[in-house]
C-alpha cells in the first residue's frame, strides 16, 4: 500500500483523519462544557446580581433612614430642602432597585410601599410642619420598625441567595465530575472512530484526489491554451490601441488647430462688429452733418430772397434819389427864372441909374454887379442842372445795370441752391441706405459672432472629448500591455500547475501519470 500510495500520501491521510475526528470530538466536548459553564456563569451572575441588588437596597434604605435622622433636628430650611431632595432621590433608587429585582421581591415591595408612605407622612406632616417631637416619635415608633423589617427581610433574602449559591456550587462540582467521565468516554469513542473511520475515509479521499488531480491537469491545459489566446488578443489590442491613440492624437491636433482658427475668427468677427458699430456711428454723424448742411442751404436760400428784397428796396430808394434830383432840377429852373428876373431888374436899375446922372453912378455899379452875379448864378444853375441830368442818367444806368446783373446772380443762386438741396437730399437718401445696410451688416456680424462663440464652445467640448478619448486610448493600451504580461504569467502559472499536478499524481499513485 505504501508503494502504491507513497509514504507522504498515507501519512497525510492518517493525519487528516485524526485532525478531523479530533475537531469533531472537540466541538462536541466544548459545546457540552460551554453549556455547563454558561449555566454556571448565569447562575453565578444571578446570585451576584441578587446579592448586589440586596446590598444596594439595604444601602439606599439605610441612607434614607440616616437622612431622615439628620433632618429631624435640622432647622435651616435650605438644608431641609436639600435633604428632602436627597431622600426623594434615594426613594427613587430603591424603587429602581426593586423594579430590577433579581430575587423574590414581593415581600420587600410591600414593605417598601409601607415605608415610602410613612417617610412621606413623616416629612410632609411632621418635619415640614415643624413638629419635631412628633416627628421623632413617629420616626422611632412608626418608621424605624418598618426600616428594620425591610433590612431583616433583605437579610433573609441574602441568606437564601447565599444558600442557593452554595447549593449551586455543590451541583457544579458534581457536574464537573460527570463532565470528566464524559470527556474520557468521548475521547475513547473518538480514538475508535479515528482508527475505523480513518481507513475508510483514506480510500475515498485518495480516489477523490486522483479525480481532482486529473481535472486540475485538464484545467491547466485549458488555461495554457487560453493564456496563448489572451496573449495574441492582447497583442492585437495593444496594436489597435496604439493606432487608435495615434489617430486620436492627430484628430486632437486638428481640433486644436480648428479651435485656434475659430478663436482668430471670433476675434476678427469681434473687430468687424466693432468697426460696423463705429461705421454706424459715423453714418449717424454724416447724416447729422447733411441735415445741418440742408439747414444751411435753406438759410442761404432765405438770405438770397432777402437779398432780392433788399435790391428791390435799393431800386426804390434809387428812384427816390432820382425824384429828389429831379426836384432839385425843378428848383434849379426856378433859380434860372430868378436869375433872369434879377438880370432884368439889374438892367432896369442901370437904366434908372443912368437917368439919375451923376447921382446914379454908384447905383449903376451896384446894378452892374448884381447883373454879374445873376449871370454867374445862371451859369452855376445851368451847370447844376447839367450835372443833375447827368446824375439822373448815371443813376438810371446803374440801377438798370444792377437790376440786370443782380437778377442774373439771384437766378443763378436760386438754381445753385436748388441743385445743392437736391444733392443733399440724394446724399441723405444714400446715407439712409448705407445706414440700413450697415445695420444689416452689424446684425449679421452679431449673428456670426454668436455662431462663432457657440462653435468655439462646441470645439472646446470636442477638444475635451478628444482628450478623454486620448486618455481612454492610453489606458486601453496600458491595459492591453498589462493583459499581455498577465497572459504570460498565466501561462507560467499553468505550466507550474501542470508540474504540481504531476507531482501530486506521483504522490497519490506513486508514479507519474501518462
Amino acid at each position, binding site marked *: 500500500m505504501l508503494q502504491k500510495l507513497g509514504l507522504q500520501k498515507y501519512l497525510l491521510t492518517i493525519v487528516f483523519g485524526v485532525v478531523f475526528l479530533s475537531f469533531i470530538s472537540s466541538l462536541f466536548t466544548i459545546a457540552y462544557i460551554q453549556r455547563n459553564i454558561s449555566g454556571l456563569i448565569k447562575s453565578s451572575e444571578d446570585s451576584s446580581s441578587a446579592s448586589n441588588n440586596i446590598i444596594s437596597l439595604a444601602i439606599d434604605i439605610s441612607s434614607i433612614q440616616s437622612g431622615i435622622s439628620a433632618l429631624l433636628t435640622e432647622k435651616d*430650611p435650605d438644608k431641609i430642602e436639600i435633604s*428632602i431632595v436627597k431622600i426623594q432621590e434615594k426613594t427613587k433608587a430603591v424603587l429602581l432597585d426593586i423594579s430590577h429585582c433579581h430575587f423574590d421581591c414581593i415581600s420587600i415591595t410591600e414593605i417598601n410601599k409601607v415605608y415610602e408612605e410613612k417617610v412621606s407622612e413623616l416629612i410632609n406632616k411632621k418635619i415640614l410642619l415643624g413638629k419635631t*417631637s*412628633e416627628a421623632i416619635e413617629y420616626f422611632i*415608633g412608626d418608621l424605624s420598625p418598618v426600616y428594620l423589617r425591610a433590612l431583616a427581610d433583605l437579610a433573609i433574602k441574602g441568606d437564601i441567595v447565599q444558600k442557593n449559591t452554595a447549593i449551586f456550587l455543590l451541583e457544579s462540582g458534581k457536574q464537573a465530575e460527570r463532565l470528566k467521565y464524559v470527556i474520557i468516554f468521548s475521547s475513547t469513542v473518538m480514538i475508535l472512530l479515528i482508527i475505523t473511520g480513518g481507513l475508510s475515509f483514506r480510500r475515498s479521499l485518495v480516489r477523490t484526489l486522483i479525480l481532482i488531480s486529473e481535472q486540475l491537469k485538464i484545467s491547466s491545459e485549458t488555461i495554457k491554451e487560453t493564456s496563448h489566446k489572451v496573449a495574441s488578443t492582447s497583442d492585437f489590442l495593444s496594436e489597435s490601441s496604439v493606432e487608435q491613440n495615434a489617430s486620436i492624437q492627430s484628430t486632437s491636433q486638428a481640433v486644436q488647430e480648428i479651435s485656434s482658427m475659430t478663436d482668430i475668427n471670433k476675434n476678427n468677427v469681434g473687430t468687424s462688429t466693432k468697426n460696423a458699430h463705429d461705421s454706424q456711428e459715423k453714418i449717424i454723424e454724416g447724416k447729422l452733418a447733411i441735415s445741418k448742411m440742408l439747414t444751411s442751404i435753406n438759410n442761404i436760400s432765405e438770405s438770397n430772397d432777402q437779398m432780392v428784397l433788399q435790391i428791390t428796396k435799393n431800386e426804390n430808394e434809387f428812384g427816390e434819389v432820382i425824384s429828389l434830383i429831379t426836384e432839385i432840377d425843378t428848383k434849379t429852373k426856378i433859380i434860372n427864372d430868378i436869375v433872369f428876373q434879377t438880370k432884368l431888374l439889374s438892367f432896369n436899375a442901370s437904366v434908372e441909374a443912368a437917368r439919375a446922372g451923376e447921382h446914379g453912378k454908384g447905383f449903376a455899379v451896384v446894378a452892374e454887379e448884381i447883373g454879374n452875379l445873376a449871370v454867374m448864378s445862371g451859369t452855376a444853375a445851368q451847370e447844376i442842372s447839367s450835372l443833375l441830368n447827368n446824375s439822373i442818367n448815371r443813376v438810371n444806368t446803374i440801377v438798370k445795370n444792377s437790376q440786370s446783373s443782380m437778377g442774373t446772380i439771384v437766378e443763378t443762386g436760386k438754381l445753385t441752391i436748388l441743385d445743392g438741396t437736391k444733392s443733399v437730399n440724394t446724399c441723405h437718401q444714400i446715407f439712409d441706405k448705407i445706414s440700413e445696410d450697415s445695420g444689416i451688416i452689424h446684425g449679421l456680424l452679431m449673428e456670426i459672432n454668436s455662431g462663432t462663440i457657440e462653435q468655439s464652445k462646441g470645439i472646446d467640448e470636442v477638444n475635451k472629448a478628444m482628450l478623454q478619448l486620448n486618455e481612454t486610448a492610453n489606458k486601453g493600451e496600458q491595459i492591453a500591455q498589462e493583459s499581455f504580461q498577465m497572459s504570460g504569467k498565466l501561462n507560467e502559472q499553468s505550466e507550474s500547475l501542470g508540474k504540481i499536478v504531476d507531482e501530486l499524481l506521483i504522490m497519490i499513485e506513486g508514479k507519474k501519470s501518462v
Partner: protein
Amino acid sequence: MKIMLKVILSFLMISGAFAEDLTKEQSDALNKEMEIIKKIASDPKIVEAVKAVNTTPLADYKDMTQDKWKDLPVLDPKVRYFIKNASAEFLKTKKNEQTTEFFINAADGTKVAFLSKTSNWSHKGKAKHDEPMAGKAWQGKIEMDESTGLKSIQVAVPVLDGAKAIGSFTAGFSITKLK
C-alpha cells in the same frame, strides 16, 4: 411599640415639666444669657424691625391664623421669610451652642423674625409675650419644646423703644448645654 414610646415620651415630658429645676450653675448661666438677650432686644436693628411691623403690618399675613400657621410647612415662603429677613440674619449671628430658639414678636404677638418655625403664629395672651409687653422679663419652666424636640427653658424680654415696650424677644436654651 408605638403606644409604649408615646407613654415613655409623655412621661419624660411631664416629668421634665414638673420634676426638674435648674441647678445653681444652670441658673447662673441663664442669668448671663438673659443679659445677652436684653442687649440683642435693644439693638437698633431689632427695634427698627419691630417698629416697622407695628407701623405697617405685613400685608401677606393679614389673614394669618393659628390654624393656618400650623398647617404651613417649614419650607413655605411665608415661613421662610421670617428665617431669611434681615432681623433673622442678625439673630443667627447672635446664637450660640446653648441656643435652641430665638423669636421676635411685634406688639400684637405676631412674628417679626425667628431662627426656626414657631408653634404659634401669635403669642398674644401668653405670658412669654404679655409680660414683656408690660415691661417685665419672663422666665418659663423646663419643658420639652415641640418645635425643637429638646428639653429646654425659655426666657423673654421686652423690645423697648425708649421706655415703651413695642414687642417681645423670646429665647430658648438647651438644658443640657446650659452651663
